[in-house]
């Protein structure tokens, strides 16, 4: 009996409207709105028309427009209905310029990234995005890729295989990541790292550690950083 009454569960839109109605600031982020069904536009219009959310169970919550900000994001896969567009301020956010991208990556990583490694990772990212813009790695993924590659020492004879796999794990999602990395790099990955990133010269690590001495420190820094952000 109770379960039937609870069949409709309040989602993020209801929660955001409810929070603002209680005087709290709320941001409703509708991410990748271009990937919703076209029917979603009608739902959005009803919401934004009078800032009222009507649940299927008949409940209503009226948002306070002075306490709520609605943010839609789109990669342009589907055009929204003109009525929705008319209610929005459209802001184009381009990819950051090269210099800025480097700053962002450095700041996220929180460690000094050798310029050659930075160049390599950015170039891989660009090559991947040229193949599939949707698959482009974010600055955060590129930063974490740099951090991991720097943390890798003492990888022994499987070095190039491990490096390639680590880079793929951040930059290309999917089972064929390593192959995509090779294709994007358009040359041998191990050779590229050796020649360009200078990772060969990384200090030798602790034999007992899978990451190496320097690696553990960097990983700890990263974990602390993630913990702080959360």
């Amino acid at each position: 009996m109770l379960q039937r009454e609870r069949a409709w569960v309040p989602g993020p839109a209801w929660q955001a409207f409810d929070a603002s109605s209680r005087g709290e600031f709320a941001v409703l982020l509708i991410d990748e709105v271009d990937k919703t069904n076209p029917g979603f536009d009608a739902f959005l219009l009803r919401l934004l028309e009078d800032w009222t959310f009507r649940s299927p169970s008949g409940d209503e919550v009226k948002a306070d427009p002075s306490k709520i900000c609605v943010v839609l994001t789109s990669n342009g896969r589907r055009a929204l209905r003109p009525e929705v567009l008319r209610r929005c301020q459209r802001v184009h956010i381009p990819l950051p310029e090269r210099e800025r991208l480097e700053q962002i990556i450095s700041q996220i990583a929180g460690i000094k990234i050798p310029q050659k490694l930075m160049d390599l990772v950015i170039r891989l990212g660009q090559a991947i995005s040229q193949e599939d813009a949707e698959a482009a790695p974010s600055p955060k993924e590129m930063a974490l890729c740099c951090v991991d590659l720097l943390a890798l020492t003492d990888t022994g004879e499987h070095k190039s295989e491990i490096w390639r796999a680590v880079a793929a794990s951040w930059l290309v999602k999917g089972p064929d990541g390593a192959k995509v990395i090779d294709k994007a790099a358009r040359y041998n990955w191990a050779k590229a790292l050796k020649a360009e990133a200078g990772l060969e010269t990384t200090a030798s690590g602790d034999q007992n550690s899978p990451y190496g001495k320097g690696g553990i420190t960097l990983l700890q820094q990263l974990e602390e950083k993630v913990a702080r952000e959360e």
Partner: protein
Amino acid sequence: MYFMSSVLLSFLKLAVARMLRGLGAILLLEGPPGGGKTSFAKEIAKQLGGTCFYYAGAPDKERDRR
């Protein structure tokens, strides 16, 4: 952590100012992945000291929640 260009920062301030006047702040952020669209929304919530409620348009979307 989010790094905004001065143009974006202006849009953020304008949106907040409109919102506080009750004029409504509805933004459509367009652009390629990796430009910081999602982070922009989270930053607004942070600046306001409010909560960001996340609605995933794509059913299988997990990447940007990280």
